[in-house]
């Protein structure tokens, strides 16, 4: 099985995608249990980060070259992600301060899983177009259980933006920074 996964990129990408969706959906279901939200996020975040084991950091988009640009890009992405909510600040739900740390954990884990590992696996299997579209579809599907359907267009558009940045800049640092800031704010 492991040999098949290592020699067949498409199969590996499919298994990774299925695993990530299973984790995210399980987390969404577990979060419905009173008092289980934080443990579900922590366990789910750890389960997502496990996917990064064995992948070279540069292939996931990590690196320190031109770090100021990466950080600046993260701020720019955060500004774009938060702009609609900032214009209508009174309508924005506010996360409790106690959720700040778990917000950081799950944001990083999701970026590593979707724009890092899944993107890299799909890129190997079918190139950048498949990686961009595939990671965006998986990202949107992962939110299907936790968000009203009306939200999913915005979720998909955010996923597409982050995936395009990942492709265009070969960078995961900026999506992580942007995602973390957005989740901390909302």
């Amino acid at each position, binding site marked *: 099985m492991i040999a098949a996964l290592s020699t067949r990129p498409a199969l590996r990408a499919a298994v990774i995608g299925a695993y990530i969706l299973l984790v995210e959906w399980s987390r*969404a279901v577990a*979060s*419905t249990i009173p008092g289980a*939200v934080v443990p*579900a*996020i922590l366990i789910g975040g750890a389960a997502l980060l496990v996917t990064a084991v064995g992948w070279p950091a*540069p292939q996931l988009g990590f*690196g320190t*070259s*031109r770090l*100021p*640009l990466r950080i*600046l*890009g993260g*701020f*720019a992405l*955060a*500004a*774009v*992600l*938060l*702009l*609609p*909510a*900032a*214009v209508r*600040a*009174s*309508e*924005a*739900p*506010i*996360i*409790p*301060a106690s*959720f700040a740390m778990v*917000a950081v954990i799950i944001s990083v884990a999701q970026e590593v899983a979707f724009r890092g590992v899944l993107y890299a696996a799909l890129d190997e299997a079918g190139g950048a177009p498949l990686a961009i579209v595939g990671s965006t579809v998986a990202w949107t599907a992962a939110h299907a*259980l*936790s*968000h*009203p*359907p*009306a*939200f999913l*267009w*915005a979720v998909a*558009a*955010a996923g*597409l*933006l982050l995936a*395009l940045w990942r*492709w*265009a*800049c*070969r*960078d995961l640092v*900026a999506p992580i920074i942007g*995602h973390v800031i*957005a989740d901390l704010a*909302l």
Partner: protein
Amino acid sequence: MKRPLLIAAAASVYLVAAWMVAPGFYDGFGPTQPYNWVCPPPIAGANSGASASSGHLVINVIDGTSDANTAFTADGQMSVSFLPGAFQAAGKTHVTVDITPVSPCPNPPDLHFTTNVYQVTADAPLIQVPPTTTQCQPACVAMLYSNLMPAPSFVYLADSPNGPWKNIGGTENQLLVIRADTNQLGYFAAGYPANAVNKNSPGSSQLLPIAVAVLIVGVLIAGIPLAILRRRAAGNVDEESDEEDDPEVTPRT
């Protein structure tokens, strides 16, 4: 230039998509709390839920002292608990309590309600003791709220749906539930002053626009020098190269 344009186009698509559903990129930390709205806010969208429920309770009275009991709506969104002897029930054998969601929804100009408004009635008055803050003396209300909305700061009480609304405090011992003690029944809602900020995140309603403005200004201020430096560096190699406009932060191989 193609890649920056694609990113700009994706950003534009996101802004349009996010604008159609407030607040936009709300990643959330679990399923949105189901809430049965009387007047669904725009953000509720398809999550409006079923109709808000009412509640009914009959409390036994023995030797003029009412039993302890809790009245709650069928959907659990609103409950009122009573300590023993909470009612002035001399001569009665029971006290009847009703909870009814109020429609049309009161919308006082100086308050933002983040829950339904409920009318709580009983056929006996509560005993008149100063309400405590945490001991449910003589009665206490607990109101569920949706995590789609800003967390309420207080529970408000009024004799009429038109107000005036009185702040009776609010504590949160359970996630997404705000409670307050009361020595009076009437109309209850949870929310916050229109000119105030959310207690869970002080200053948040003003902070978010400021934070985004700071991000934008910071990106512009820091980005322009970085772009100039990069353009100069790229220009030394090939001024007309397409590479110089590429935003790629990692070196191409």
